[in-house]
């Protein structure tokens, strides 16, 4: 069954979609002033989040986390341990919610599915030859099909940055569309723009619009393999693109900053930017995720401090 990008999603695009028409559409996308973006982010970063509002934010941050391991040295044992942490982040405090998902390589999918069975934690697999995506479209589709058949809940794909930068917009669009077809309605598709390779916030915004039009359920900043990864300015620009896309098409799209977010303080800044750009409708794990591996323990440490008034050392939080 072919599942084309819906009419609402493509409503911003020209009638006939090809590289030339996509190019002229992308050039019509509102430009971005980097100085202005940095200023807005700096202003929002001065928000002072204390007490109840801080605890609420940190618990939300846990529930929004895609706990991630994407390494050559990943093993079934490592996956089992991470899944255990994902389901019960703080064994001492059961009121801390489980994380949203675990994010892993395709080879690890069966182990992860097994480990999280019966819990609310979802399994997300990277696909399309993450992180570079430098293979034929056919192989990317095939890899996606394989992880979908294995039963993942979510797929994190990469866009072809080389194709985008060389102006082959239709290739980028078409790959996303085809991967979404394979995912169908039941598997959430997150599209990684790898903003660290795009070079300008204008292109961050353009790739965001392209990915959303092609069928992305969520747009995601980075693979975590390229620096800079998830910065606040890039995230703001993507959230603004989501806002414009939503008001023009009525289609709600999620956001996932990934890579480089390590402290509670940073996580809260992302939530402030989210809250003041898109509003409460996006303040849920269904529409916002943090892709992170080391953030979780810092958040747990802060939660325990807020609840008990005491800081405990890193040794009191499990490293899985």
């Amino acid at each position: 069954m072919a599942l084309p990008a819906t009419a609402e999603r493509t409503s911003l695009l020209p009638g006939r979609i090809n590289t030339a028409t996509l190019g002229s559409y992308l050039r019509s996308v509102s430009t971005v002033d980097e100085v202005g973006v940095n200023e807005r982010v700096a202003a929002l970063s001065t928000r002072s989040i204390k007490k109840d509002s801080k605890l609420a934010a940190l618990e939300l941050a846990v529930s929004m986390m895609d706990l991630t391991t994407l390494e050559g040295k990943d093993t079934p044992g490592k996956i089992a341990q991470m899944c255990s942490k994902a389901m019960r982040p703080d064994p001492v405090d059961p009121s801390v919610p489980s994380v949203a998902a675990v994010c892993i390589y395709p080879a690890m999918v069966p182990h992860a599915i097994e480990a999280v069975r019966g819990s609310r934690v979802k399994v997300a697999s990277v696909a399309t030859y993450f992180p570079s995506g430098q293979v034929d479209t056919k192989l990317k589709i095939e890899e996606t099909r394989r992880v979908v058949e294995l039963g993942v809940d979510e797929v994190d794909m990469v866009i072809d940055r080389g194709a985008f930068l060389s102006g082959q917009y239709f290739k980028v669009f078409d790959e996303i569309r085809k991967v979404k077809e394979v995912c169908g309605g039941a598997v959430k598709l997150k599209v990684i723009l790898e903003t660290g390779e795009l070079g300008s916030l204008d292109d961050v915004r353009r790739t965001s619009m392209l990915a959303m039009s092609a069928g992305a359920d969520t747009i995601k900043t980075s693979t975590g393999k390229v620096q800079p990864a998830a910065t606040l300015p890039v995230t703001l620009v993507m959230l603004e693109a989501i806002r414009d896309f939503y008001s023009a098409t009525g289609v709600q799209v999620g956001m996932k900053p990934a890579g480089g977010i390590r402290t509670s303080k940073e996580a809260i800044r992302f939530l402030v930017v989210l809250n003041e750009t898109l509003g409460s409708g996006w303040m849920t794990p269904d529409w916002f995720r943090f892709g992170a591996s080391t953030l979780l323990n810092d958040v747990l440490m802060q939660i325990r401090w807020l609840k008990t008034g005491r800081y405990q050392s890193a040794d009191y939080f499990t490293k899985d």
Partner: protein
Amino acid sequence: MSSKAVVPVSAPLDWQYAPSRESTGIVALKERYGLFIDGKFRAPLSKKYFPTINPATEEELAEVPEAGAQDVNRAVVAARRAFDEDWGSLPGKERAKYLFRIARMVQERSRELAVLETMDGGKPIREARDVDLPLVAAHFFYYAGWADKLEYAFPGLHPEPLGVAGQVIPWNFPLMMLAWKLAPALAAGNTVVLKPAETTPLSALHFAELASEAGLPPGVVNIITGAGATGGALVAHPGVDKVAFTGSTSVGKLIRSQLAGSGKRLTLELGGKAAHVIFEDAPLDQAIEGVINGIFFNQGHVCCAGSRLFVQESIHDRFVDKLKRRLSTLRVGDPLDKNTDVGAINSAEQLARITELVEAGQLEGAEIYQPECVLPRNGFWFVPTLFTGVSQSHRIAQEEIFGPVLSIMSFRTPEEAVEKANNTPYGLSAGVWTQKGSRILWMADQLKAGVVWANTYNKFDPSSPFGGYKESGFGREGGRHGLLPYLKGIGL
């Protein structure tokens, strides 16, 4: 079939920020202040005092003296003596040391001064802390650097100080305006009598204390408080060589006619009705932030506020929609809360003026938009307001409102934008948003405004001259230009 995610939606969090109030414990308020004359706080010869209140609560903060003619005279005499015997002949490098010391002390005490500024004036602590105080220190640092380089700034012109400067400043940026006035005057070798506005006298008096601790010789800076009559006596005093005034155009006109033929030097920084021009190719989301910052910064109590918005017709509706959405996220309320974006209106009088003009806007047929907003019960408040469908002939497009009220109009061509933007008696500032560099340069050339910001708004730097055209005044503050009004023999 929809390709939206089908996962069940968990309830979104309606995230309310807990109050995060800056402590006022750091400010040691006195019950009653004196006039700072000749290095000491003195009771006024007038024997009169008046209260200054916190506009966010209407609570009285302290009593300050109302300087009478005798007090003004005393201050001017002290300034003259200090000029003749001390400051006027002090080498530039020595004056610089004092200014550097003051700048550093402002930095050290910036938290206290920021809180005080917020308490007395109603501005959000975020702005007092992140904008006002850093600029105050920067201004003193900057002019400290000029003090021993005047011969290089004006080679061959033998720059010399004028004598005693009488300076009258407004209530919107009390300490920042004090810095803009004092720093160049002192760097050039003048002595000063300064009068802060009657609704915001406290930060200047605390600054006087700081100047005294910095060891500034007695009489070099004198701070006298009072209302219009005190200011009038100061500018009229025959011992004053130079008058610098920042405030309303009507008072500015009065001062100018009063000073005609007196031989006193004069600079005026008056009102404005700035045009903020948005072209269709602008980076829209950043332009929205620029517009918001342009009109709601400091509750719109800004002479260079971007109070007339001109949006190119092709993007008008979309832009206004974005603006309305953004307006609803502004946090209006307790100025001492670190998360407040828009604070209190400075005084009951100013609130009445804003209210009157907004009513006039509605009567004249413009369409008003105000977001839902819960305002505190006490204090002076005004909801951030937009007007669409505004015509050039409406009062809200012509008169300075000096409040959080934006009048939105549209244009079709760059020529029309320029024509409308310049169609005002004022000429202080303007803003242009476009991606096209050549258009920015062309617009900057065409706009009759002392300051033109491109793809940003309300940016200040001590090295950048600031001042107006037409009824917005004359003379420049900031930069090398800012020294000219305080030096003998060098024309403006």
